[in-house]
């Protein structure tokens, strides 16, 4: 059984109604895939055995996924990791990626092709004028157990370029912050930026940059990105406030295209609404629906979606052939944004760490 890739469905831009129909149709294909003994993974097959209802028959659309309740992040912590590998892929090379690791044992996610599909889909949103095909990239951010390095490198290769990589270890950064060793943190940041400068100075054909907000500031405060030849910046990894967005556009980018994104190992990559001065630098993201869906829900009643413009907690549902995560509460909050022509489904605006936690999550420089 091989469900079609949604990114390879019709290229015509759908209406809100059509997008919703497509999502429901995709759910009707993906759920049987994960709950069929021929294709599903041990975790979901075992999960289904304990249910007194049959997901394959009773899940007929996206709203029905609520029957699974909330996805518990503990399920992704620890092994055996093979329980997440769909039977259909058991002979394929498997990657495992981890989340940030700022809280205890990291969550893991297996991957076969998803990171490539996600970033190929994302590639279509990057303007060639600013991210020239064939030009080289600098990936300045977390690699290690994260999928980001491979993903950005694939993006560069997919667009005909070669990717230079400089690593940053966010788990070390978080430790330094918790220990209050801010001077060591600064040294580490300088060490990372110095490596980036070396690449930019010695490689004249690097035009495209992936980096995190804090590293973009650190780099932009050291050199002129324009003089370094950077014409397109793909930015993500941590919160981007409207003030940071404005600061980046007004003072750091010097005309380079800015592509802010919201993403993580579980979801993939949510794209930004094209810049509109009327938005007051608020960034709105749209999930790669139907492969992933973002909802803004009431923190105490995660089944209830808040009204447009209202604040709530971000709830993620991932629906790919490789990975099924229904109703996962992210550690973020945001405002619910209405659909736009380009992305005819709900968006999330002003994503930031969820304020309802007793202790804040250390985000660090990465």
């Amino acid at each position: 059984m091989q469900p079609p890739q949604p990114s390879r469905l019709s290229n015509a831009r759908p209406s809100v109604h059509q997008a919703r129909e497509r999502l429901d149709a995709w759910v009707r294909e993906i759920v049987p895939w994960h709950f069929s003994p021929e294709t599903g993974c041990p975790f979901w097959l075992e999960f289904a055995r304990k249910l007194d209802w049959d997901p394959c028959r009773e899940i007929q659309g996206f709203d029905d996924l609520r029957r699974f309740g909330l996805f518990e992040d503990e399920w992704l912590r620890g092994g055996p990791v093979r329980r997440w590998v769909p039977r259909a892929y058991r002979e394929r090379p498997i990657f495992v990626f981890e989340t940030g690791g700022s809280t205890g044992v990291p969550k893991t996610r297996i991957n076969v092709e998803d990171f490539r599909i996600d970033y190929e889909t994302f590639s279509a949103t990057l303007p060639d004028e600013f991210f020239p095909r064939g030009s080289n990239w600098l990936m300045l951010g977390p690699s290690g157990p994260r999928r980001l390095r491979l993903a950005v490198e694939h993006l560069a290769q997919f667009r005909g370029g070669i990717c230079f990589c400089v690593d940053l270890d966010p788990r070390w950064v978080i430790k330094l912050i918790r220990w209050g060793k801010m001077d060591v943190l600064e040294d580490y940041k300088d060490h990372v930026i110095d490596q980036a400068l070396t690449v930019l100075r010695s490689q004249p054909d690097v035009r495209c940059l992936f980096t995190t907000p804090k590293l973009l500031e650190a780099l932009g405060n050291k050199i002129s990105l324009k003089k370094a030849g950077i014409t397109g910046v793909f930015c993500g990894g941590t919160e981007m406030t409207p003030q940071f967005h404005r600061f980046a556009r007004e003072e750091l980018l010097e005309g380079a295209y800015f592509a802010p994104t919201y993403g993580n190992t579980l979801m993939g990559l949510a794209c930004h609404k094209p810049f509109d001065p009327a938005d007051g630098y608020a960034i709105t993201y749209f999930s790669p629906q139907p492969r992933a869906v973002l909802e803004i829900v009431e923190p105490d009643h995660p089944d209830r979606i808040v009204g447009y413009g209202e604040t709530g907690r971000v709830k993620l549902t991932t629906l790919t052939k490789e990975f099924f995560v229904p109703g996962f509460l992210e550690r973020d909050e945001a405002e619910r944004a209405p659909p736009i022509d380009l992305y005819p489904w709900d968006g999330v605006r002003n994503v930031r760490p969820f304020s309802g936690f007793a202790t804040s999550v250390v985000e660090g420089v990465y």
Partner: protein
Amino acid sequence: MLHHVPILREGKPYRSLQSVTLCHHRTRQPIAEVSQAHPGLIGRDLRTSFERRRRFEGMPTRDLLRVCRDAARHFLEDSLPLGDAFQSPEDYVRHLSATTGMPEALCRQNMGKIVRVLTEMDRVLAGLTRGLDLSALDGGQGMGGRGDASFQARADCFGAVLPSNSPGVHSLWLPVIPLKVPLAVKPGREEPWTPHRILQAFIRAGCPAEFLGFYPSDHAGAGEILRRCGRSMLFGDTSATRPYQDDPRIEIHGPGYSKILLDEDAAGKWEQHLDLMVTSILENGGRSCINASAVWTPRHGREIAEALAERLGSVPALPAEHPDARLAAFANPQTAERISTLIDQALGTPGAQDVTAGTRAGGRVVRLDGCAYLLPTLIRCETPDHPLANREFLFPYASVVSCPQAEMVERIGPTLVATAIIRDESFARALMASRDIDRLNLGPIPTCQVSWDQPHEGNLFEHLYRRRAFQLVDESASASALADSSILGNPSHGDFRSETRKPDIP
């Protein structure tokens, strides 16, 4: 009207998309939106500090002293820019009182302290530099009293991470301007008013705006300033200042634990010093690090405590607008409750008593028009070991500690101001030698009486400048100079000689 307090980037107002709302301590009505600077923005501005300081160097110090005098007048009398509007002196007092809870009368008193320091800046600098001819800072050399002296700035920008407790503390960083080092100021959360107004007064008086940075921010912004500025001062409690304790670039202004010390003789005449004790504890609402938080005495501890409690216990909580108000309201009532609970818990340890408890009808925390106040509190401690013997809180709080005179110097611990009322010479010598005491008053001087030409928790001039070794050839005596330099036998000195010029010094 909701005011906007902007960031000042090289003196120019900047409205951030990120802001903090300040509310009136009583009505909880929003008073101001304070633009917040994120670390990247601060770091970007500080990149150009070197060039700006070089331009600052070119301004004669005498002109900057004139700027200070004019700024004093503008600060006291003018309507000065505040975002898109203007702030009159009366507006300033009202804003300051509204967001900090400090009585308006005390706000005006503190305004006077700032004006005095600005007006008498030449005297302040004379004290800090011990009479240096300030032209030494103009040409890089001058008369240091015993021949040529040359000074080099240790920093291209001075960072001031400031508190909200009392506007008087802003007097401490004012000399940075005539000392010609650009400023990066991070105000306390509830008190952006005073530093912003001071900077606007400087700009109106003719100080080039490019030397003045004002960055309301959070801890991350404060950290950015402390890291990027070659020299800084940092106000904060022990936990905020601990990470920077061993950083020589940063002058720490933590809790004061200021004290009045009596010897055997003075303890026998304690009634004569009661006014001084009350003033030291109560002035400025007890919100300064230079307020006394303890009286140490070898005898009559109980009598002193009871007399002080009677005086302090009669101070009422009054609305901030009341001309006789002497206590500040707590902008956050929970803070007052927490402090009071902390004191009560510590009283559980035997050996201490809240003597003021018997002088008031109700509890230590009182509510008035929806505000919380902490009434003055005097604790009698039988020994210095009690946990309340050496504490400091943001209201008139003091302990009266019994301690043998012979043990006092050993046991007082870190003390910002010690007023020692003593006749015993050996005791005086021991106090002079003590490294625990920062400011020492010998004789009946209130702890809060500050002489601004004296250093305070470090000498700002020495923090900002170092004297370098410097030799200059006097061409009229070139033969002997050449002979001297040839002794050194270093060819580079020959190169240097060719670049020297005749000094301007008479």
